[in-house]
């Protein structure tokens, strides 16, 4: 009996030591990537992107002996969170998705992104200037776009007809009048995903652009002062709209892509309008039934007395950047991905707009053609505020417009709070 007790103790002691060594051994792991092994983090989790991205990788691998591109696709918000953690570690994947603007600028300033100006100089100018702009700072290029688009009003033609609105509103006054008419006809005028905040910020941003022009926004971004007249005016105009109670019941808790969210309400014909980007028709179809020929598009109306032209647009796209240690092969892939052939495939799927000259003939949908034409004729371009500005400012814009829409903040308070956040940077 005594012997067994002792051997048990010996065994346990040995087991204890073995247990100790496991974490130590694990700590020695880790892997590095070589020129041939490329890691690509992106947000292509839904169709048609999922298939298109995979196809592009396969074709590139077939044409380049020994190269493997490992894709890691994450949903939008998950991607942003994971990138936050990753940037803290100081090492980014070889190729990573970016929306450009303030976030990319911060990553560039932290020395995490490769300056690819010289590598892409021979072909980057073939891409549309609007598509390129979000990824270039001080004349240097840090990423290559694959998509570009803009925000505008998507509307249900049948509802407009029923409410006796002859033509899409061209001014803010006409727009408010249309909202009144829709309400009078018993139709919920606008779908809004209040829980997510970013769809709400489109209104404030576009109104500011219409009142003061893109120039006023860029001036504010430079001076960090958002208390100038266009921004306060934007809040007042937004308040005029909110006071009409144009949004669906319970909009403050609604999300954008869910079965009872903003896109589904539009797609199922429950509301007459939504202010959304070029991807809207796709999501409407995915979350709801889709409106087919009843769906129309009109640019954000002009504001009476505002100095911003109706041809100035607000939008953004998607691109891919290269990490500091990223290889030339990775840049080669970006060139391949941005080629006219690949661009045509993306555009033909109906979910992307062209970034190259020559791919526009692949646009089939008449609404998307309108969007593309508006974009192409644009006299000014402003990227989404929550991407263009540093994250702390962008989120404050979202938070504050959400408060304004919920009736918890005045236009003046919004402008002051955003300024405080910008100055605190």
């Amino acid at each position, binding site marked *: *009996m*005594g*012997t067994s*007790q*002792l051997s048990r*103790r*010996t065994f*346990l*002691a*040995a087991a*204890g*030591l073995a*247990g*100790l060594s*496991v*974490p130590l051994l694990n700590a020695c792991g880790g892997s590095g990537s070589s020129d041939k092994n490329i890691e690509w983090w992106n947000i292509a989790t839904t169709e048609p992107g999922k298939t298109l991205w995979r196809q592009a990788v396969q074709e590139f691998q077939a044409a380049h002996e020994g190269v493997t591109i490992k894709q890691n696709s994450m949903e939008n918000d998950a991607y*942003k*969170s994971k990138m*936050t953690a990753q*940037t*803290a570690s*100081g090492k980014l994947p070889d190729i990573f998705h970016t929306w450009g603007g303030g*976030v990319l600028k*911060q*990553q560039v*300033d*932290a*020395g*995490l992104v490769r300056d690819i100006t010289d590598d892409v100089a021979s072909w980057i100018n073939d891409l549309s200037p609007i598509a390129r702009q979000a990824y270039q700072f001080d004349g240097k290029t840090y990423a290559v776009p694959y998509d570009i688009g803009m925000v505008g009003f998507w509307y249900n033609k049948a509802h407009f007809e029923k409410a006796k609105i002859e033509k899409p509103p061209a001014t803010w006054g006409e727009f408010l009048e249309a909202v009144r008419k829709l309400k009078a006809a018993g139709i919920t005028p606008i779908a809004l995903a*209040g*829980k*997510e*905040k970013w769809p709400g910020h489109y209104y404030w941003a576009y109104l500011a652009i219409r009142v003061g022009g893109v120039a006023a926004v860029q001036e504010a971004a430079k001076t960090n002062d958002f208390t100038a007249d266009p921004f306060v005016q934007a809040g007042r105009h937004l308040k005029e709209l909110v006071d009409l109670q144009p949004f*669906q*019941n*319970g*909009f*403050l*808790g*609604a*999300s954008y892509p*869910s*079965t*009872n969210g903003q896109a589904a309400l539009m797609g199922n014909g429950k509301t007459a309008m939504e202010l959304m980007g070029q991807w809207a028709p796709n999501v409407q179809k995915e979350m709801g039934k889709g409106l087919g020929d009843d769906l129309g598009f009109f640019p954000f109306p002009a504001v009476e007395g505002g100095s911003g032209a109706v041809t100035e647009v607000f939008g953004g796209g998607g691109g891919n950047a290269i990490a500091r240690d990223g290889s030339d092969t990775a840049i080669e892939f970006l060139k391949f991905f941005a080629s006219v052939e690949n661009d045509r495939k993306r555009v033909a799927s109906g979910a992307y707009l062209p970034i190259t000259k020559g791919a526009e003939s692949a646009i089939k949908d008449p609404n998307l053609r309108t969007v593309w034409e508006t974009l192409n004729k644009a006299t000014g371009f402003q990227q989404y505020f929550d991407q263009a500005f*540093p*994250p*702390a400012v962008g*989120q*404050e814009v979202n938070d504050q417009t*959400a*408060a304004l829409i*919920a009736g*918890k903040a005045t236009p003046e308070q919004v402008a002051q709070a955003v300024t405080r956040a910008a100055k605190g940077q």
Partner: protein
Amino acid sequence: MTVSVRKSPPGSDAAAPPARQRRVRAGRRRLRERATIVGFLLPALALFAALVLVPILFALYTSLFRWGGFGWPDDFVGLENFVKLFKDEVFLGDLWRGFVLIALSVVVQLPFALAMAVLLNQNLRGRAFYRLLFFAPYVLSEVITGVLFTMIFAPDSGLADHIMDLIGLGDLGITWFASSDTVLITLFLVMTWKYFGFHMILYLAGLQSIPKDVLEAAAIDGAGPWQRFRHVTLPLLGPTIRISVFLSVIGAIQLFDLVWVTTAGGPVHASETMAVTMFQFGFKRYQVGYASAISVVMFLISFVFALFYQRYVLRRDLEGAVTSMRGRR
């Protein structure tokens, strides 16, 4: 490693060795025992240090910097983050909302769980089924619960609104998660649905450890059902109740997933908790220094609460478990 094998258990030694030798041998044995203890504790301690202590200390360190999460923090600002924190209306609101949720949990949710436990401790047909049914929500992940209830409380089309219509309260037009007036109470409903089963099971276990003869003796002495509950069951259930309050409070302080999925803290911060605010600043605004300050305050609140609660409330319950060593050695 070698362990010298003792031939027979102590006490059965045929010829007792001289006292000095015995002392040396005892000392060696004790040393070996310690070495074994350390050997066993080391892996756990190493993991604990790497995964708990180091992050806590790092958060403490970064909370003193203005830091965006890139590279190493270098913009030292002292206690500025904390000063800003206690002027921030959202954070002060977080403290208030945390307090409200804790109060509701302790005053409403736990008594409800206790009542259900007492009920299901009776001889009731199908009580095993009910026990399982009430405990089941606890097994679901917070995210699934969140998604489920965003559907149930969806305006107009959700189940909750249909039920309100059926019982004739549809005209009240309650928008649940979508109004800053009702969001916190709706959230509390979901929390209760999810967690009361867990506390109920705790209480059931406690109830079953109460000796039947004590209750019988009380009955023979003429105590009514309420008196038996109030003066026998409740005091004997004390340790369980104290632990359940403790878990409930700590849970409410750290509440995150459920809020994030259902409301993301909205509308306009009306359901935001400290953890949600921390996430917003850390992962959305890239103000990691400020977010660290929030996490440090959260840690201190939990820590101080746990310390005081264990010292003053749980003291009697922990006696024997923690204090036994002092008596023996």
